[in-house]
């Protein structure tokens, strides 16, 4: 089954017709949005599933590579320093961050019948933060699955389903609840690709809100980045704007690796204008929020906004900080960060975390 995934020629729409189904963004003239070939087993079944497949290759915006016929998931739809990334070439539409997440999820579920969602109250209730609102009515109860309160098992179930070829998006109602599923995330999600000698891939997305909210209490205000940092095989990203929320959600779903998408409880109602056309944010790239000369400030998620406020004060005082939203927590975008540090020679890290067990302690030592 898996062997067919990348090389099978499926008797479906050819690339020329499929590209008209999506609007594409041409960044460097050599990029084209492409779609992953879907496995023959699902597509050939019962004849009621239509699959669109195209031959396409991605090249990363900043690290241009020769186009290949295989899908490379590190696509970039925008230049790295486009901090006003939401303007794009067209007016776009305004929405809140949680709606952007939903849009990304909806688009991916429409595109690929293997994508499904599972979590507590994601279906009929619409999600505790409304990220999955309306999806159950659209896609049915099997694809948007309401699970009982059993994080360990439904995370395991999602991982097992991913082993058969599905692409589940597992929602933890609060990231802290996923601590119950730590064994599944660490051993079965992160390590399975390695211990099986590459036989199985686990294309899950584990997402949920975490971080400090308003009086949510200690147990509901946790950050799990430092706990998950040491799990091999896992990719971690944190979204901070509506634009990158949608882009990262889509990229995470398309990635063959297990991705943990960290959202923040207090950022769900951020309003932003995002492009109408389809786009993806590269999973492994950091975002240059404000280029500068004097100091590199590394941050992610909600702290980005605090840092930008502080940057205003700094600028008034005559300093020129460079603010980078690292977005990719594992693996780091050493290219962007390294380039910046080489320029400024000063780093300030701003992170929301427990006083002991900060994510950076792990990552800076491992990425020296």
């Amino acid at each position, binding site marked *: 089954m898996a062997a067919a995934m990348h090389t099978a020629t499926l008797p479906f729409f050819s690339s020329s017709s499929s590209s008209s189904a999506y609007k594409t963004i041409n960044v460097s003239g050599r990029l084209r949005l492409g779609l992953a070939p879907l496995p023959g087993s699902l597509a050939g079944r019962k004849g009621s599933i239509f699959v669109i497949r195209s031959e396409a290759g991605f090249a990363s915006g900043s690290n241009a590579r020769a186009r290949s016929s295989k899908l490379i998931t590190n696509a970039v739809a925008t230049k790295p320093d486009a901090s006003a990334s939401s303007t794009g070439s067209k007016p776009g539409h305004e929405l809140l961050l949680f709606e952007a997440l939903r849009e990304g999820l909806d688009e991916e579920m429409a595109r690929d019948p293997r994508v499904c969602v599972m979590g507590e109250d994601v279906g009929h209730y619409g999600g505790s933060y409304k990220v999955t609102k309306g999806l159950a009515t659209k896609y049915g109860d099997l694809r948007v699955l309401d699970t009982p309160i059993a994080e360990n*098992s439904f995370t395991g179930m999602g991982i097992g389903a991913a082993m058969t070829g599905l692409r589940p998006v597992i929602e933890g109602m609060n990231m802290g609840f996923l601590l119950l599923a730590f064994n599944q995330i660490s051993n079965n999600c992160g390590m399975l690709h390695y211990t099986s000698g590459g036989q199985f891939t686990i294309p899950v997305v584990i997402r949920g809100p975490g971080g400090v909210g308003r009086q949510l209490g200690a147990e509901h205000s946790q950050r799990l980045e430092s706990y998950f940092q040491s799990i091999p095989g896992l990719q971690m990203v944190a979204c901070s704007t509506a634009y990158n929320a949608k882009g990262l959600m889509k990229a995470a779903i398309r990635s063959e690796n297990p991705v943990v998408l960290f959202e923040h409880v207090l950022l769900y109602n951020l309003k932003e204008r995002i492009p109408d056309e389809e786009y993806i944010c590269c999973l492994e790239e950091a975002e240059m929020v404000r280029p500068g000369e004097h100091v590199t400030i590394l941050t992610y998620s909600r702290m980005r906004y605090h840092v930008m406020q502080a940057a205003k004060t700094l600028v008034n005082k005559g300093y020129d900080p460079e603010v980078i939203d690292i977005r990719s927590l594992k693996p780091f975008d050493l290219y962007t960060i390294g380039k910046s540090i080489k320029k400024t020679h000063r780093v300030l890290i701003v992170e929301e975390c427990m006083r002991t067990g900060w994510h950076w302690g792990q990552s800076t030592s491992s990425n020296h």
Partner: protein
Amino acid sequence: MAMAAHRLPSSSPLRSSLSRILRFSRLFSSQSSDDQTVLTVETSVPFTAHKCDPPPRTIDTTPKELLGFFREMSVMRRMEIAADTLYKAKLIRGFCHLYDGQEAVAVGMEAAITRRDAIITAYRDHCIYLARGGDLVSALAELMGRRAGCSKGKGGSMHFYKKDAQFYGGHGIVGAQIPLGCGIAFGQKYSKDETATFTLYGDGAANQGQLFEALNMAALWDLPVILVCENNHYGMGTAEWRASKSPAYYKRGDYVPGLKVNGMDVFAVKQACSFAKEHALKNGPIILEMDTYRYHGHSMSDPGSTYRTRDEITGVRQERDPIERIRKLILSHELATSSELKDVEKQIRKEVDDAIAQAKEIPMPDPSELFTNVYVKVIWA
């Protein structure tokens, strides 16, 4: 050989012994390909059921199947004993959990299902890998950590996988494979495959919370999963009555039906598994409790005699050994003579020895393999 016998004078003792060998080996080879004659066997004990009607005790088989069972189980037995020797010779390191005594479960299950059905188990996985079509060389190479092992030498004893045969491993943390198995069944249901998943776990793992969580979800959504408890009565060093308030594992599903099966009888296992598959595809999950036994300790670091008596072990070996049971059946139905069966065993022994020699020649993985297969298509390799 037939020609040679005829050229000898009819009174020659050589000719008569040759023709006797000829007759018997013709008997054996003809029987082992005979799948037309129907033999009816009865399972050793009837099934005990919980919330369902048990399947019948009588089951039809053919000589080919009987002889095939004998062969497969003997290969498994031989491989596990060989692994024991290799471990003591320090060619296999780490944990090595041996399956000898439990072969009937692996063989009977495989006989009842297709290669499109999925099997997932915990760390006592060597023989399930063989049953799913894995070959001896890749199994032994994986045990010794060589690069041609089934997981490229990166998994080890507890991480055997065979994706093309729907064998999902091979897991170190007991109980964690149960939600995975339910997930595989979810995937099968989602893709409308009409296949089922057999999720194996032990009596030790039967007390894990995730089993009950997964059971609840499987029953809620009618997932085609069969939960098989390989009850060998000892969770490492703890006897089942010391760990479980209710050792009736087939009843633990409460609202999920269950069946207790004599796991040392390959026909009982086969009958139960085909019954269970049919049930799961129609009605959702079912629990099978296989009453089985392991001769070795929990793993190679456990002598296996501190928590049970040697008499108990030899007693089970004499009364309930799965291979002996099949041998008796073969002899009673006159499908082969006992010397022929011994020849088969000798042949298997040689096969396993050859596989060991072959596996020993395979080199260890390249050190660069430490960092491959961590991510799929990563930039920062």
